[in-house]
């Protein structure tokens, strides 16, 4: 069963072969390394860029303009913040030219905490990304979703921001990617670059196909009747786990993996809240001007009179960074017990 890094790699391979992807590039994306997280090992169109994030986004825009199909990587989303003007420009190019130009480009970048990455390898980007019109924004939490949504991103004719939760990079799913061998070791032998000299290595790609996971559809991770939890990325598995724990206590929670942050699946979220009357939004970006607050605003504006309890946001603390030492990281972003606590509290609010 593939992990997320392998899922990215297989998706990009499939996209090079079948979806017209012409360039997979960024810092250390090409051989020999194949990406800081191995996501781009063995790809035929991968190459190493200069250390210049603004140049990377500009290059992607140019390639897309000229008819190529780029997948650009920003090594860590912590280093994307000097490109926001260019991201905004990419997002407004179709609109500003009154429909003349469109930019089919994908930007992928690892996000979030969970690997003790300290101040500059722990940032989230979902709040900033969702404030930029003209982009589709995807953030999967399982290898299969990563694979399928990355294919969808490569099929898009609009800019897509693909956020990869780095804490989950090595985690394996329960669902097979269509075509991958079921056995972890077998897949690793086929597509993981070897130690030592890689100059003669070539991956053996499995016969992959497309699971057709559309951008814009949420996933029901667990059905439940008493409260709704909406999350994505690193915190999603924490929510799923918490729902199991609480089920044993008699609290029946529904868990939704948003997967796409824009355009998001409001129908799914709305239907669930209408059913449960209680909703918790969980993410790990800092909590002021946070995308979860948008979801909460919409909930309140549209579903106020159906709510049994005040909707609640659990997100990252509003501090300037995530500190390296364990207690600092744990205090800064939602942990397993924080999610459980928030769910329990919400479940018992008297209407």
């Amino acid at each position: 069963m593939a992990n997320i890094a392998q899922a990215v790699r297989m998706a990009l391979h499939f996209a090079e072969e079948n979806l017209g992807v012409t360039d997979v590039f960024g810092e250390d994306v090409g051989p020999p390394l194949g990406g800081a997280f191995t996501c781009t090992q063995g790809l035929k169109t991968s190459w190493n860029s200069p250390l210049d994030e603004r140049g990377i986004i500009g290059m992607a825009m140019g390639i897309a303009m000229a008819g190529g199909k780029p997948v650009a990587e920003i090594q860590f989303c912590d280093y994307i913040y000097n490109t926001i003007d260019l991201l905004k420009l990419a997002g407004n190019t179709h609109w500003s030219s009154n429909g003349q130009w469109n930019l089919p480009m994908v930007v992928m970048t690892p996000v979030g905490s969970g690997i003790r990455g300290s101040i500059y390898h722990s940032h989230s980007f979902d709040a900033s990304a969702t404030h930029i019109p003209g982009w589709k924004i995807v953030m999967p939490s399982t290898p299969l979703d990563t694979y399928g949504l990355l294919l969808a991103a490569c099929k898009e004719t609009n800019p897509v921001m693909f956020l990869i939760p780095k804490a989950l990079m090595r985690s394996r799913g329960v669902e097979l990617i269509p075509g991958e061998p079921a056995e972890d070791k077998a897949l690793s032998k086929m597509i993981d670059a070897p130690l030592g000299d890689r100059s003669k290595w070539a991956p053996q790609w499995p016969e992959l196909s497309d699971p057709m996971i559309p951008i814009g559809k949420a996933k029901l991770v667990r059905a439940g009747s008493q409260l709704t939890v909406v999350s994505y990325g690193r915190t999603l598995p924490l929510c799923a786990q918490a729902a199991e724990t609480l089920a044993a206590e008699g609290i029946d929670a529904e868990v939704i993996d948003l997967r796409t942050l824009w355009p998001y699946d409001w129908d799914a979220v709305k239907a669930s809240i209408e059913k449960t009357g209680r909703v918790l939004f969980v993410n790990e970006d800092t909590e002021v001007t946070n995308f979860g607050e948008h979801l909460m605003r919409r909930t309140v504006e549209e579903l106020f009179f159906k709510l049994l309890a005040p909707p609640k946001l659990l997100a990252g603390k509003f501090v300037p960074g995530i500190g390296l030492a364990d207690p600092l990281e744990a205090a800064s972003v939602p942990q397993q017990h924080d999610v459980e606590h928030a769910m329990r509290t919400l479940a018992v609010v008297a209407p």
Partner: protein
Amino acid sequence: MARDAKKLSAPAKSAKAATPAAKPFKALVTHSDALPLEKELLLSMHDTMVKARCLEERLIAMYKTGHGYFWIGGPGEEAFNVPLGLLIKKGQGPAFDFCHFHYRQSATLLAMGEDPVGAIRQMKNSASDPYSGGRNFAGHFSKREWNIAPVSSPIEVQYAMAPGTALVQKRHGGDGVTIVTGGDAGTAEGEFASCLVWSSRKGQELPVLILVTNNRWGISTPFEQVQGVEKISDRGVAFGMKTKTIDGNDPISAYLELKEAFEYVRTERKPYLVEARVSRLYGHSSASGANMNTVEADCIAMFEAKLEKAGLLTKPQAQAIRERYTEQLADLARLAKEEPFPDGSTIWDHVFHGEPGRDPFAG
């Protein structure tokens, strides 16, 4: 609020007057009176230069009479921009040239064969504006059929994108190149350096004609006050690229110099950095008043003197050309003034390619 009060930076009208006189550039290239280009080309360049000037003057007049909120454009740069347009291989896709322009490029578009009514409609921000549908400022061209990337207001971002189109062109084969233009002040932004870095990687050089029109001003700030480089073109030397600084006020010199640079980039598939020294004849934009600056050299007047001396054009002929364009453009402006604005509901159009426009919160 009165319409006038909404004009961008209206207060700065006073500023123009305070702008110190620009020091004229030392002559960069000594041209004899000999005219090393064919008569037809010379006269057609002159014709287009005049047309472009008349267009800009019409746009300014529209601004001053309340038919547009903001003017910015390229009067004074015609001697550089017209030859540039003539040398571009226009068309769609990587076999043709890609153009990443800034906001002073109307003369280049006219030289490429563009109808001036588009610029007038954009000035009027009418729905008929072919470049942005009334969304963007004057001078913000975009024409996908000719690989003209949307001009955007942020200074210098085009230099970050240019290597991208050039990469696709290099792979595609043929002789299509990427052209990027911007001003002198803008070279202080990091993207200018990015363009140099990304275009000049050894063995992976890209066919980019990197142009800088140096008018010695960034709005009200003189170049010498904020940058220590003598010649902007020298910035390319460390990157091993061909560079030169040329006289952008002489269309003959500009044509020949650009031709040489284009040929190099088309055939060698490597970058060339060209700095052109130009004038800025109506100040920065309408924010600085858009009044004629009589101190800086006027390339059209100089060219006309040369053509007259060579017996190729008489004063009355030149005058007639100018009058004809002035009239034609006034007619176009009258036409555009009657055209409707885009409807408010159209803000939702073209948010996403391939999807109908709609308010996501409309329910």
